[in-house]
């Protein structure tokens, strides 16, 4: 039984994190999970800039989730300016968000999570044995990328979305092409689901509450109420129940809901919105190992695979419903005010808030990323999970901890801000 574990370099996650664990007589005496990235200062960088610059600047918080930051920032600014986008703009924003989620889930599942479960150090090492699976992954990632580049006019940090509309609309022909390409990868997504449902996951229940956006009639992507099985909040009230605080061992803030830990991400989304999944995704959920609500964070991987199918179905539905018509970008009337944008990024709920003065200049900003919200839950899950595996060899304990962390698909570079475990 190890007395201390120090993970200085957790791999296959986004960004850098460290974990310090102290163990005495089978009990965890110290558990500190922290981001060790440098602070990002984006909230300070946007102060003094015009309202129409927020989304372009905050997009740079992350190359993987840049789309989510763009949409959250635009939603927040439009909220502050009391502007409601057109239905076409809303559909395009949802579609581009789904594209990012397809790319992100496919990459995380096959290249970061799967090697752990099939006993390889990396995706490259398993490539010869898992050729068809990795080819599926590449096809799915390609379609995700194609959605972003078609709608966003760029592959990364897309530029078409703006406050008040869409700067360069995709042609109807391009949307129809996308629909066909999405159809061609649906089977790849179904196979992904079957693969991840067949894997063996550790048995563990998290005590955190599972939160995501919800809407009455649709699987929430870019708006909705923040909800769990027991609680529901309007976005305007987020500061009343979410509190950020700092720990000296982390450059990322921790976030609690009414002083309790909680989880955001795909598993909470499925737990809270499973009835609104596409027909194919609902069927695959029934065939999976997940019993709703699942409190096992390791099931996050299966949830991502199920959501992958849903995203493809939903993206096809949107493509088929879109009849692109020319809509000049609207210029909302500039006014002083505060607005909140909340979206479901691939890794969970993302909050952007901006206060504008009467010249439309940003005077205050607050951004809460999914990983900042999950940080305490991951840390406490590790604290509760380790005693059940304490008799294993040190390297197996580390592997189980890393799998747990990776199942959350965290992005430490975005939260402030990989795993360093320090056993003390």
């Amino acid at each position, binding site marked *: 039984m190890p007395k201390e574990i120090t993970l200085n370099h957790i791999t296959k996650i986004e960004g850098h994190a460290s974990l310090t664990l102290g163990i005495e007589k089978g009990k965890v005496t110290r558990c500190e999970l922290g981001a060790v990235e440098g602070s990002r200062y984006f909230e300070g960088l946007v102060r003094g800039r015009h309202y129409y610059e927020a989304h372009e600047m905050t997009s740079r918080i992350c190359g993987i989730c840049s789309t989510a930051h763009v949409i959250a920032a635009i939603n927040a600014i439009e909220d502050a300016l009391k502007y409601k986008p057109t239905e076409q703009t809303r559909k395009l924003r949802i579609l581009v968000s789904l594209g990012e989620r397809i790319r992100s889930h496919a*990459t995380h599942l096959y290249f970061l999570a799967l090697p752990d479960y099939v006993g390889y150090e990396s*995706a490259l090492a398993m490539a010869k044995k898992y050729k068809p699976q990795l080819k599926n992954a590449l*096809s799915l990632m390609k379609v995700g990328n194609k959605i972003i580049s078609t709608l966003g006019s760029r592959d990364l940090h897309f530029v078409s979305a703006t406050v008040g509309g869409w700067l360069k609309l995709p042609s109807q022909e391009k949307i129809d092409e996308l629909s066909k390409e999405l159809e061609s990868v649906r089977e790849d997504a179904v196979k992904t689901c079957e693969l991840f449902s067949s894997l063996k996951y550790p048995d563990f229940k998290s005590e955190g509450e599972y939160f995501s956006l919800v809407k009455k009639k649709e699987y929430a992507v870019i708006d909705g109420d923040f909800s769990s099985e027991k609680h529901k909040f309007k976005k305007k009230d987020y500061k009343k129940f979410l509190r950020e605080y700092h720990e000296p061992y982390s450059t990322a803030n921790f976030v609690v809901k009414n002083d309790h830990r909680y989880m955001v991400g795909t598993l909470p989304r499925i737990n809270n919105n499973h009835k609104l999944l596409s027909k194919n995704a609902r069927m695959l959920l029934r065939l999976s190992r997940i019993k709703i609500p699942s409190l096992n964070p390791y099931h996050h991987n299966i949830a991502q695979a199920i959501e992958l199918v849903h995203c493809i179905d939903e993206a096809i539905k949107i493509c088929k419903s879109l009849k692109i018509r020319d809509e000049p970008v609207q210029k909302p009337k500039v006014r002083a005010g505060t607005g909140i944008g909340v979206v479901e990024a691939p890794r969970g709920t993302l909050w952007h808030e901006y206060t504008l003065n009467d010249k439309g200049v940003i005077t205050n900003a607050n951004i809460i990323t999914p990983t900042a919200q999950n940080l305490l839950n991951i840390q406490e899950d590790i604290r509760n999970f380790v005693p059940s595996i304490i008799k294993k060899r040190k390297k197996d304990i580390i592997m189980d901890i890393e799998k747990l962390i990776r199942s959350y698909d965290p992005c430490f570079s975005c939260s402030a801000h990989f795993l360093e475990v320090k056993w003390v």
Partner: protein
Amino acid sequence: MLFVLSPLLRSKMGLRKLYVFGNEFLKDDSFALRVAEGLSGVDVVHCRRPDELMDEEGELLILDVIKGTDNIRIIKDIDEIKTRNLVSMHDFDLGFFLSLMKELGSPKKIKIIGIPEKGEEKEICKKVEQIINNI
């Protein structure tokens, strides 16, 4: 005046595809793009993402800048490229993608014409053209 041929016309003309990588906003990284502009007899495809290479079934020919060399190098073995293990999505770069494609066995052959980060554009362009004709 430059006349740009449509992709369909270029493929009908049977021109060989040359996939070129580079970020137009970065001076050194965009050198391959500037060199490619002067090439003739080849269908230049500006690649923005590695997955654009996925549909190529024949021999894959790539032009890119290589760090730390003063000469043009032809890389025929992907193992010559320094590849990091994929530890985050941010590592999903061209080097990793080509190594993965090699492991997956598709396409069968990949050749990279590696040019230095800087130099005399016209001279390098001429040499690259000769190399393409002789490959």
